[in-house]
């Protein structure tokens, strides 16, 4: 069914919380939707780790810490390669994928680990990691859910970087703003107008739309139509 996975994820993000879609909820949904042991969201910028947005449990927290400290692991690879990195059996001696990370992660109780990158066009935000306490491949269904989940997480991360955006996040996820190409054309234009990266321009557009309570896509259309310029705009 069209968009069914996405709707299920957004539905889960929306329930159970009175107070918006925070980071913790995001990680819980990552775990629940894939029915794995735990999950975490790692934020990265270029080669630099920016920190952990959330983890579901102590083991996930260790997974992220190890990757920050050692500079290797599934999320680091997924972030750099821009595609999922799947390790169904971390303890398999035939595969020495991450010399330092693997042994320590197994020692903490991780047997299978999967990193899914969070990307929005040319903007790389980090990766979601999913782990299981027993070895095994992801089913096709879990894999498809994880891909869609990483997309939703990327949108959520972008939106969270704008103040007060939790309220609009749910609405925006529903609209799937990231799939509206005009938003990206506008981000490209604004990045030139304000001499910043496309990622920063996306944030700026969101902040502008949020402050004026207008849908992001509508603001983007104005930018592309050259009705709105950000050059001397404070928004």
């Amino acid at each position, binding site marked *: 069914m069209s968009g*069914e996975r996405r709707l299920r994820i957004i539905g889960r993000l929306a329930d159970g919380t009175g107070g918006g879609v925070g980071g913790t909820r995001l990680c819980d949904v990552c775990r629940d939707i894939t029915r794995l042991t735990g999950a975490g969201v790692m934020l990265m910028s270029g080669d630099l780790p920016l920190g952990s947005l959330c983890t579901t449990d102590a083991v996930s927290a260790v997974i992220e810490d190890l990757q920050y400290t050692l500079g290797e692991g599934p999320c680091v690879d997924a972030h750099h390669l*821009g595609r999922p990195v799947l390790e169904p059996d971390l303890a398999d001696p035939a595969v020495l994928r991450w010399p330092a990370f693997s042994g320590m992660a197994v020692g903490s109780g991780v047997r299978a680990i999967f990193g899914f990158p969070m990307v929005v066009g*040319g903007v790389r935000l980090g990766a979601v990691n999913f782990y299981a306490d027993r070895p095994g491949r992801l089913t096709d269904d879990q*894999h498809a859910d994880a891909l869609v989940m990483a997309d939703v997480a990327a949108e959520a991360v972008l939106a969270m970087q704008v103040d007060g955006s939790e309220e609009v996040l749910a609405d925006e996820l529903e609209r799937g703003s990231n799939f509206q190409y005009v938003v990206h054309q506008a981000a*490209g234009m604004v990045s*030139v107008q304000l001499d910043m*990266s496309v990622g920063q321009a996306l944030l700026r557009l969101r902040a502008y739309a949020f402050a004026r309570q207008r849908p992001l896509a509508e603001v983007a259309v104005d930018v*592309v139509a050259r009705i709105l310029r950000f050059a001397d705009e404070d928004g």
Partner: protein
Amino acid sequence: MLARTLVALADNLVADFDVVELLTLLTDRCVDVLDVTAAGLMLASPDGDLRVVASSSETARVLELFEVQANEGPCVDCFRSGEAIVNVDLEQVDGRWPLFGAKALEAGFHSVHAMPMRLRKQTIGALNLYRVHQGRMTDTDVVAAQALADVATIAILQHRTVRDAQLLNEQLSQALNTRIVIEQAKGVVAERADLDMEAAFARLRRHARNNNLRLADVAQSISTKTLLVTSLDP
């Protein structure tokens, strides 16, 4: 001409071919080889919804986006049924696609066709063909259009990295993301060189072609500002 196009498509199937690149070439060649004005192509995301991945012109692209949003039109029907839809006269489709029909006429198109991108039971997307004039597409053209769609489909499904459903999904997901990078790069070029989106896209593609680079790579360099708009071929 058709043979040359098939060779060109096959030529693109090097070890690490890019899906968006291949499909953009496909839509372009449809316009060259077939008696059609514009072409657009949609692929299903891992979530099963259609996304516009390539188009021969900005007009076709906007129309395709509209089709996805309105959730009606030839590509949508073709993808759902897995069957080709040919020679639909847009003046007579009121009941079938009320929103899409009006929009397509407004854009100057009078007939549409859609070919499934299908291998056995798996449909991964659909190719839309638009004509400004009425009248039927010749049988030869219909066969050729389906052949072009088939080559692209097989290429995607048989790609060496696509061994199973998971890898296919990853590749489709990457293709959709490449499309976003291209939109971002179009914005950068449009603003810097004071062009509309259509001209900005043409500029990116010309540069990629002239320098034997992948469109996806040129777009990535432009969007991250590692390649300056002023360095693009005019």
